[in-house]
């Protein structure tokens, strides 16, 4: 598989127990790999968790990351996701100042264009929930900067490859 981008996505299935995130993140620290984003959550099996990591680096870095991760006992399986056939999603909550009606209506319009939702409204501010690829979220945030962004919370990208294969059932490198 070829990853030409300078950033690649790693799908990992790990034991769902305390200390595992430390072992994984420690490997990045120790081997001088760089995490751009990380998202973690439960899976279809209760003793397993899924991690999706966006990592800076080329093919060679990607192969090293996979091989080093496979040495961790709590890592059940790990593979580089093929971006061409991977569904990627990230969610962001963006808080914007909105004390005047004109700004409020701008925000609602932008949210519609981005197929996102206004999920909270208070006298001074609005929270918008944006879901999509990281690029789309970046674009929304760029736009929102025109009126000033008060606070952002992003989940980091989560991803699954299309089709029948799963990370859990892939051959180990």
């Amino acid at each position: 598989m070829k990853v030409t981008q300078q950033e690649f996505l790693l799908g990992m299935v790990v034991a769902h127990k305390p200390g595992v995130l430390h072992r994984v993140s420690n490997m990045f620290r120790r081997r001088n790999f760089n995490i751009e984003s990380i998202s973690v959550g439960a899976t279809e099996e209760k003793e397993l968790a899924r991690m999706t990591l966006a990592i800076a680096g080329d093919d060679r870095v990607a192969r090293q990351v996979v091989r080093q991760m496979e040495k961790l006992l709590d890592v059940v399986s790990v593979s580089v996701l093929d971006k061409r056939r991977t569904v990627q999603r990230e969610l962001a909550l963006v808080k914007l100042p909105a004390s005047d009606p004109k700004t409020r209506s701008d925000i609602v319009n932008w949210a519609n264009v981005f197929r996102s939702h206004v999920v909270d409204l208070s006298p001074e501010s609005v929270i918008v929930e944006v879901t999509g690829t990281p690029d789309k979220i970046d674009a929304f945030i760029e736009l929102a900067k025109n009126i000033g962004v008060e606070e952002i919370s992003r989940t980091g990208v989560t991803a699954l490859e299309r089709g029948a294969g799963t990370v859990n059932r892939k051959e180990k490198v």
Partner: protein
Amino acid sequence: MSGARCLVEALRQQKVSVIFGLPGGHIMPVYDVLLDSEIRHILVRHEQSAVHMADGYARASGRPGVCMATSGPGATNLVTGIANAYMDSSPVIAFTGQVPRLQIGKDAFQEADIVGITTPITKHNFQIGHAAEIPRTVKAAFHIATAGRPGPVLVDLPRDVQTENAEVDFSENPQIRSYPAKNNPDPDGVERAVEFLSDAERPFILAGGGVLISNASKELRLLAELLVAPVGTSLNGKGCFPEDHPLSLGIVGMHGRTEANKLILEADVLFAVGVRFSDRTTCKVDGFCPKAKIVHADLDPAEIEKNKEVDVSIVGDATIVLHSIRNRLAKRLRKSKANRWRTRVQELKDTMRNQNNANEDGLKPFAILKALRKTLPANAIVTTEVGQNQMWAALHFPAFMPRTFITSGGLGTMGFGFPAALGAKVARPEVPVVDIAGDGSFLMTENSLATSVCERIPVIVVILNNHMLGMVAQWQRFFFNRRYSAVELGNVPDFVKLAQAYGAEGSHPQSIEEFSSALQRALKTNVTTVIDVPIDPEEDVLPMVPPGNSVDQILA
């Protein structure tokens, strides 16, 4: 059964016969049980020595070494030794006490997060949550430390887990669902390696610590002889190929032998087995065999491409890889194409030997080590400290048998050699064990003299004494305009009196003859002897490849 009893029983079932350690508050329940156990406990005077002893024991015997310490400072004192074992792939299992479960995270007295601290320097580590987990965790720890590429494992035991009573089941096995230990190599890789090697006109074998760990020395020799390929080793591979063999070139690298460094760059096919292409072996990595086809075999898949891109990679156990390559090669190779190569190898070896023999007079490291080699039997075990002593030993003290040369190659830990020698002697009491030391390194763990005397573990320490941190001084001579910064150690201590103060013996020879007779006496006594040999502080380790240069740019 209490957790402590459970631990000692689990260790007995793993056939542990010796533990190196030092007790303290939060490991006392285990020590109480150890008193009634058949397991021998060797009391150290500093925990760092306990882990080096376990490491030396493991490397000399091939069996895992076990050490034990209390929580907090006891555990953190193990850290250097654990990192050392990790870098050199040595199966060491460390047991540490921990504060009671409810105090964890409260900055309790003698609390340290040793699991967090040792995560990057262990293959895996555990903190026991309940006494009932102890049998399967101990099994898992020994399995992980020894399976695949060996390495250290730490097990942290909260004090109240040691005293807790639990129903335990010693037949329970751990579930390790994803440990990659792939011993059998991929046949395609082997086939491609055979193709390269059968066409090679100038084959070269670079063998490392992986060959020793796999006990693959015989297979290595048979392959080298079939190919007529000269063999160079990494520092940690020293001893995996007999250094008196006509095809042996000694070590490659920053302080490699000139013939080894020159010939490896002349090779058309490099077969690297059980090595990790460390910077000390390759020097400038881009300048390391840029024209050769490189075949890299290692048990750890993460070593492939980590430091050096290669033409063929084979993941597998060294013995199996060497055996399958030789089998297929024997069918294909009618006659080695390496006859002219063999002549070239022999000529260069002869030239270098004549040059080396030139500077033999006086109490020079070369002459001291030559006398040491002449006196010691082939199966004697030598350990080294780190620095000039280590590099002189690597260059001038040939090793003839596997597991007879034990050194801190990866981490470069001063103070390793002496406790490692004691650990090796415990594993192999029937052979003489010698620590080739420098005065700076020996001072870091000299308190192990107390252990060696009280526990009756007699070894010989040969101090090449230049009253200097010699290797740093050498670099200051070469690269810092002879500005000696913080390297002069003064004329203290008197090592003979130091040895005697511990109840060991000491001598201070002034000539090679006196050194040889001191050594003869030391081999006959049943107490540790420190032989303090004065050497010239200006003596350099040569040849040397200055940092940043390729392996054939040698200062001689």
